[in-house]
């Protein structure tokens, strides 16, 4: 079974530029998550999709971050404009069930973003 795919793996941009990350979850997984992992910290949930609808985006800085999952499969996360404090690894994860009680997540390798 193929795992969660993410691209690019690394990205370096200057502050105030925009950037987009892509995630393709495991086939058939209904739920998709984006996490932000700042160096030295555990991952923090940014947004959760169930199929193509948003379940939770309470931790997403909506003034600069946006995410979509239009067809209920792959997803993009965008930052515009980027700030220095956005430097982090952005992890995508997917979960095979759509019931909130089932909570095993499978993670992709992440995208390491450096904002200069």
């Amino acid at each position, binding site marked *: 079974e193929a795992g969660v795919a993410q691209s690019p793996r690394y990205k370096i941009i200057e502050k105030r530029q925009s950037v987009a990350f892509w995630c393709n979850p495991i086939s058939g997984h209904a739920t998709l998550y984006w996490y932000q992992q700042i160096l030295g*910290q555990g991952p923090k949930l940014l947004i959760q999709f169930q199929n193509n609808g948003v379940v939770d985006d309470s931790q997403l800085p909506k003034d600069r971050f946006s995410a979509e999952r239009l067809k209920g499969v792959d997803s993009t996360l965008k930052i515009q404009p980027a700030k220095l404090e956005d430097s982090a690894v952005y992890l995508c994860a997917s979960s095979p069930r759509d019931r909130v009680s089932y909570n095993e997540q499978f993670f992709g390798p992440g995208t390491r973003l450096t904002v200069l």
Partner: protein
Amino acid sequence: AQSVTQLDSHVSVSEGTPVLLRCNYSSSYSPSLFWYVQHPNKGLQLLLKYTSAATLVKGINGFEAEFKKSETSFHLTKPSAHMSDAAEYFCVVSVTTNDMRFGAGTRLTVKP
């Protein structure tokens, strides 16, 4: 609300000696608990999970963890460390799928 505290930011052991990574949790409801491992430049990999079945949970690569409700702990252990175990380990508490709280992580170093 739930939270998790990993008591050690860094643990160093010698190859062949036991590993103990400590995790305490706080939750208003019966939680699910997980340990994930993250090798450099790799995705998070699930080691084991507790979901209200047996309190002693066995995972991959010889790791196990014991859920102790009275102590609100979920410590990760392995009898004998291997060089390949060197990585970052995260304890996670969850009540629902969209509310997984990660600890800050414990970096495990294994000395030859």
